[in-house]
């Protein structure tokens, strides 16, 4: 600071203006150099080459242009300071420059992840759609399978009238509860029955010969009743419905094979040929009419 007094003194001595200008300039230079340091900074070229690496990485120039610009500025500032500043300031600027370069790297990586996220979002939406479609396809395939099962629920014309037979697979084992597929089928059957509103409908349950007769009668009745209930729920008047539990008394196949027993476990829905209150006693099975009649249960509740 004592240097500052010099120009004042010179001015006071009323020397030529030219001289004072020279002195002022010298003083200014002296002051400027007071915060300079000639120490050769070794880190600077390293940082410069680090920056060049980042500059040449087109992912970084694409993904983190702002951070790259900041890094360039920081390195330039360091280089400007490098040949004249004190070591501690150079160290400080080197620290900042290094961190700016690192920031550009990290930011570029983050941005790359962001791009991937956008891609993935699209992939995910597509996959969701695909999955939903395949789920729907599987569901419709399953529905198709059930429908084909339902066509096995065969209908045939007999002397007694139209008989719809529901196979055993539409019930759970030893249960009277209907499978959902059976309900769908029965909706259709109910629709058919309602086209003949004045005809009586007899729902007959049948079993194979395994198990006691009494158990079989009971099970067959419960199954027939379950079917009748669904029909009724689908608009078939309970006045027209009659439920019979016939047990093992009317096999349609031999009970000595698994396939035969499967055929025998069934519920038949008989849409009687003629209207009127009597049951179709003139049918092909008329021989057993009399004997089974006492086992016939009442209509559904």
């Amino acid at each position, binding site marked *: 600071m004592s240097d500052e007094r010099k120009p004042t003194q010179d001015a006071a001595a009323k020397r030529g*203006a030219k001289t004072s200008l020279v002195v002022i300039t010298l003083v200014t230079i002296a002051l*400027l150099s007071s915060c300079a340091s000639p120490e050769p900074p070794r880190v600077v070229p390293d940082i410069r080459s680090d920056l060049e690496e980042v500059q040449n990485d087109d992912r970084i120039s694409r993904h983190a242009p702002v951070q790259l610009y900041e890094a360039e500025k920081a390195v330039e500032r360091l280089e400007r300071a490098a040949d004249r500043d004190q070591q501690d300031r150079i160290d400080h600027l080197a620290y900042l420059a290094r961190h700016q370069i690192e920031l550009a790297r990290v930011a570029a990586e983050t941005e790359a992840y962001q791009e991937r996220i956008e891609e993935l979002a699209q992939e995910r939406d597509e996959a969701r759609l695909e999955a939903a479609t395949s789920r729907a396809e599987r569901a419709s395939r399953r529905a198709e399978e059930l429908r084909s099962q339902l066509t096995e629920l065969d209908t045939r014309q007999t002397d007694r009238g139209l008989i719809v037979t529901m196979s055993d697979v539409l019930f759970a084992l030893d249960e009277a509860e209907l499978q959902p597929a059976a309900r769908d089928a029965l909706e259709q059957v109910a629709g058919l029955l309602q086209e003949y509103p004045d005809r009586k409908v007899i729902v007959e349950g049948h079993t194979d010969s395994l198990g006691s007769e009494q158990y079989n009668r009971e099970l067959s009745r419960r199954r027939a009743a379950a079917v009748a209930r669904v029909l009724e729920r689908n608009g078939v008047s309970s006045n027209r419905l009659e439920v019979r539990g016939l047990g093992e008394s009317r096999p349609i196949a031999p009970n000595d094979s698994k396939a035969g027993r499967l055929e025998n476990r069934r519920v038949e829905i008989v849409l009687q040929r003629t209207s009127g209150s009597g049951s179709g006693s003139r049918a092909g099975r008329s021989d057993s009419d009399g004997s089974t009649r006492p086992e016939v249960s009442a209509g559904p509740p």
Partner: protein
Amino acid sequence: MAARHVSGIRLLLVGMVVWGVACASSPTPREEIAQARLAIDQAAQDDAERHAPGEMKKAREKLDRAQEMMRRERYTAARRLADEAKVDAQIAEAKATRQRAKSTVKSMEETVEMLKKEYTDE
């Protein structure tokens, strides 16, 4: 002569301003300290404490030291420490953000994988 004398003083003043700018020491680095604190707070909100604990620690320590230097009126040191604390915090935040993006990528990849499985395995 008097006019020339005045211009000489003016030149001296200009010289002092140049000196001041060259040494980059405007008196108190309050602004720098405030920025460093802001950067640390932002990084902390971004969960940087978990993803970049080292940088966060450095940033906080430097901010403390910057404030200490402020009190001792060593403004150049205070400014440098504050500037360094700021970039430390910025790095910590950038790392936390990167980590979050990375985790998001991972979980989304898993989701896509799962969905694809659903319609490829029948």
